[in-house]
């Protein structure tokens, strides 16, 4: 479904991504891991259109992605969340979802909005101002809700679990699992927490200094000494 080949991104003299090749199939759930500054968010920016690669190709269901502006990528089924939640200002939670549905999915369906509100647990906060009426976990949920409202085929989740306490995290993971199973979405998730990746993903891709250094099952990844050295500086079992 998603196919990236030899993607290279540079900012000035710095190479953020070097020859990254990655393929993600329909209904796959892929963890994207790596130390800070490895290029994980940059890769999301390339896929969603916020960063332009210097070289390489990218396609989504055989459509050339690199020619499409950001908003057009939403309409062909690519959604993403931001690490720092970006609620749409001056709007309520419900209006946030309405904008995402109207422009991302290209139609209006009030019942679907209610379903999503229910699913992300924000039904009671639907009429609150999204920018200042929500707690952190609710902001994260709204990020996912906006992405779902665009009716995507692929969702890019950028550290949606970071900063949540254990109970909230567990609940959120259940939501993500259901989302993957029920809606049949492909998901790429950036996450630092090893346990989360082990619990959620069938496959993990490790980025380090802009390069893919491993693409295996999560179990294999976290037994791989090279990965562990680059990723946390820790050794397995530590």
């Amino acid at each position: 479904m998603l196919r990236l080949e030899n993607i290279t991104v540079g900012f000035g003299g710095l190479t953020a991504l070097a020859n990254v090749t990655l393929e993600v199939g329909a209904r796959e759930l892929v963890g994207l891991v790596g130390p800070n500054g490895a290029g994980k968010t940059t890769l999301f920016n390339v896929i969603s259109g916020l960063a332009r690669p210097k070289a390489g190709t990218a396609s989504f269901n055989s459509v050339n992605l690199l020619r499409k502006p950001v908003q057009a990528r939403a309409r062909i089924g690519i959604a993403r969340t931001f690490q720092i939640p970006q609620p749409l200002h001056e709007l309520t939670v419900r209006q946030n979802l309405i904008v995402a549905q109207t422009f991302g999915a290209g139609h209006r369906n009030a019942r679907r909005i209610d379903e999503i509100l229910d699913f992300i647990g924000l039904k009671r906060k639907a009429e609150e101002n999204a920018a200042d009426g929500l707690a952190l976990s609710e902001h994260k949920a709204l990020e996912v809700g906006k992405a779902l409202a665009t009716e995507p085929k692929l969702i890019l989740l950028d550290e949606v679990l970071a900063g949540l306490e254990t109970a909230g995290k567990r609940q959120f993971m259940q939501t993500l699992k259901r989302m993957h199973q029920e809606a049949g979405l492909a998901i790429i998730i950036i996450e630092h927490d090893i346990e989360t990746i082990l619990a959620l993903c069938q496959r993990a891709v490790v980025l380090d200094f802009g390069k893919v250094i491993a693409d295996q099952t999560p179990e294999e990844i976290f037994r791989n000494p090279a990965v562990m050295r680059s990723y946390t500086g820790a050794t397995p079992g530590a």
Partner: protein
Amino acid sequence: MQQRTIITIGFVVLFYGAVPAAFGSTDYVISSIVAALTIAGTAVAWALLGNLGGMVSFGHAAFFGVGAYVSALLTMNAGWPVFAAIIAGGAGASIASVAIMPALRLRGPYFALAVLAYAGIFRILATEMEGITRGAAGLLSIPRLPTILGFDLGTNIGSYYVILTIVLAAMAAYAWIRRSEIGFALLAMHETEDATRILGVPSTRLKAMMLVLSAFITGIVGAFNAHHISFLDPDYAFSGVWTVLPIVAAIFGGFRTVSGPFIGALAIYLLDQFVFKSLLPTGHQIILGAALGTMILLSPDGLVPLLGRGLGKKRHAAT
């Protein structure tokens, strides 16, 4: 919601009934109100672009002047009926706005500067294209508004009803867009443009739509004014007054509300004409500046939100 409906109905009754009944026989007052409404129409258009499009324009004089010239020339040279020509004036201003669209990618002060330069071009064109516009000599005896069903719209009171209807229609369009998905998306774009585009919102296209609409409204108001005063020259039609006064009015009244620019224009213009001018015959605009400064200090969101807060407090006190 019900309170809003009552306010809207009261507003319409006041302006269509009470104001003409009270001042209809005083030409000086009613013509001042017509002038205030001309500013109000431009202020509504400016605020629509500023609030929904997130762009501060210093170029609305261009749209005002283009609308005025297109409409005046169509009636004088091509024999168009006045109202059709006024609509065409709006369309002409919309077409003129296309030339500034590349600047929509600029942000903040850069956009403001680009529009300022852009506006200057039209005054020069109107002055230099003497074959069409008669240059600096200007256009005299532009056809006045017609008589319809025995009611002469060319009189001050007739013109009052015409410009009032234009301004209220512009406000209704503004309010409707603001409550639509397009309005939601536009408001959200101010703070979080990338996050909005990620959801599929074509941000530049929506801003361009607001620019075209804002230019259209301003062009119509400019065209109305040309037929109302029956005279145009480049310095008048493209005067900086048509840019500055609407901005002052919109900010004074509250440019983030739909009624703010309207209330602001009436307050600013009428205070200036009837109070400040008699206090300080020369340089009365300085009081205008002080009033705006005070308003910004007192309520940065303008007069209408200030009044709204006052009402809110009273209601709390009563319960």
